[in-house]
């Protein structure tokens, strides 16, 4: 991967993705070989929106590479609540760290941040925009279970606001994948995501029900439908209920079906699915660490190479 930042999944080529995933595989096979690779480096965790697992996953990945982490803490107690702009915040934090991980409630926040700093920026979620590091770990999980070509995947739930969905769908266009999107009418893919998919000539189909396509799927990627997306609670319960799966739902599926979820789940995947061979979401979550190690390793390596070039010039 020859990138300075990781902002959206659309920036990633097939080669970029495979390079990171190959490295993630190496990391997983021999973590000790990576243990002190970036000792003395500092990673800043800038979460303008609450997150536990993404933050912890980056924290763990960094520490396993010998990187120290600094955390700006909760937004309530930081200078952000005193009205400081994101632009100023990242300009200041840039001086404290060798790379930034940023989560922010506004779409485009990571793009803006990357324009103002020279250290690598990783977008760990920008509003309903993108979440590309999640996509890398999703792809790693799919690859380890099925490979990434000649694949049929169903992505179900909140496709409109789901940033993990937007990133995953874009990245899958780099591979030979049929994508089925299953959601209520009101939560279909946004126009901008559909535009990118059509631009690449990707094979995509949209459905309101899972049943007709379940049988064909190699992977079912489930996301949460949030209550806040509906004007009233009854409507939410009615709609969300139709996109819940349990062990019985999956009886119609292929034996090899892999069920994924970016987690946390609420009740869209019933606990009885955990007992089936389909359940892959915990493995998926665990993959966050080796994949983020591979990503940080790659970005820091690229930054060092760029620095070396400047010095030599």
């Amino acid at each position: 991967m020859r990138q300075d930042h990781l902002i959206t999944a659309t920036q990633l080529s097939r080669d970029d993705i495979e390079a990171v995933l190959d490295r993630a595989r190496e990391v997983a096979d021999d973590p000790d070989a990576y243990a002190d690779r970036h000792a003395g480096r500092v990673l800043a965790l800038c979460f303008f929106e609450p997150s536990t697992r993404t933050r912890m996953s980056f924290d763990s990945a960094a520490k396993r590479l010998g990187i120290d982490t600094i955390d700006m803490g909760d937004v309530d107690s930081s200078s952000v609540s005193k009205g400081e702009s994101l632009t100023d915040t990242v300009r200041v934090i840039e001086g404290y760290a060798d790379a930034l991980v940023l989560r922010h409630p506004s779409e485009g926040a990571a793009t803006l941040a990357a324009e103002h700093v020279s250290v690598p920026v990783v977008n760990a979620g920008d509003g309903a925009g993108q979440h590309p590091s999640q996509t890398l770990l999703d792809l790693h999980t799919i690859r380890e279970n099925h490979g990434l070509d000649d694949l049929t995947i169903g992505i179900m739930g909140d496709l409109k606001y789901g940033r993990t969905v937007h990133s995953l769908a874009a990245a899958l266009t780099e591979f030979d994948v049929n994508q089925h999107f299953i959601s209520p009418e009101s939560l279909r893919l946004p126009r901008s995501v559909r535009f990118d998919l059509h631009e690449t000539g990707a094979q995509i189909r949209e459905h309101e029900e899972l049943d007709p396509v379940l049988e064909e799927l190699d992977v079912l990627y489930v996301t949460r439908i949030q209550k806040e997306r509906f004007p009233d609670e009854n409507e939410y319960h009615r709609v969300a209920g139709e996109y819940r799966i349990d062990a019985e739902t999956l009886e119609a599926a292929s034996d090899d079906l892999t069920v994924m979820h970016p987690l946390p789940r609420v009740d869209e995947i019933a606990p009885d699915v955990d007992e089936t061979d389909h359940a892959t979401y915990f493995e998926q979550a665990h993959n966050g660490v080796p994949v983020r190690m591979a990503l940080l390793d790659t970005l820091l390596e690229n930054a060092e190479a760029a620095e070396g070039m400047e010095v030599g010039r």
Partner: protein
Amino acid sequence: MSEHELRVSKIRDGTVIDHVEGGQALNVLAILGIDGSEGFGVSVGMNVPSDRLGRKDIVKVEERELSQSEVDVLSLIAPEATINIVRDFEVVEKNRVTRPDSVTGVLSCPNRNCITNADEPVDTRFDVVADGVRCDYCSTILRADIADHIDV
């Protein structure tokens, strides 16, 4: 001199925007930020018969020449437009508009949750795509409703 040319050259000094797609004349005025309160002469022809467009609109503005960013945005809603600069009743310059690759600082993003609508020191930037423009920050695509988001 044909009737058409007469119409076009009726102003002394200013700009005639011709071959505007029928129905877009008021949007052209919106892009130029003209509402009549400026005091200079403005005339608008709507649904004028045209060989090229069938029906076209014409906007004539006295004592005003257009900036590049105005022309850029104009090209998005009136891709066939011609811009005639008039001095002393003569058309001294006649240009077709060309679609720019991007427009900066002119449009506001319709996505309220876009970082460009937060309190940040940032100019909006839109890429020009096949049938509209697209926010460089949040990827939102703006099509027919471009004129509603002009922020000059």
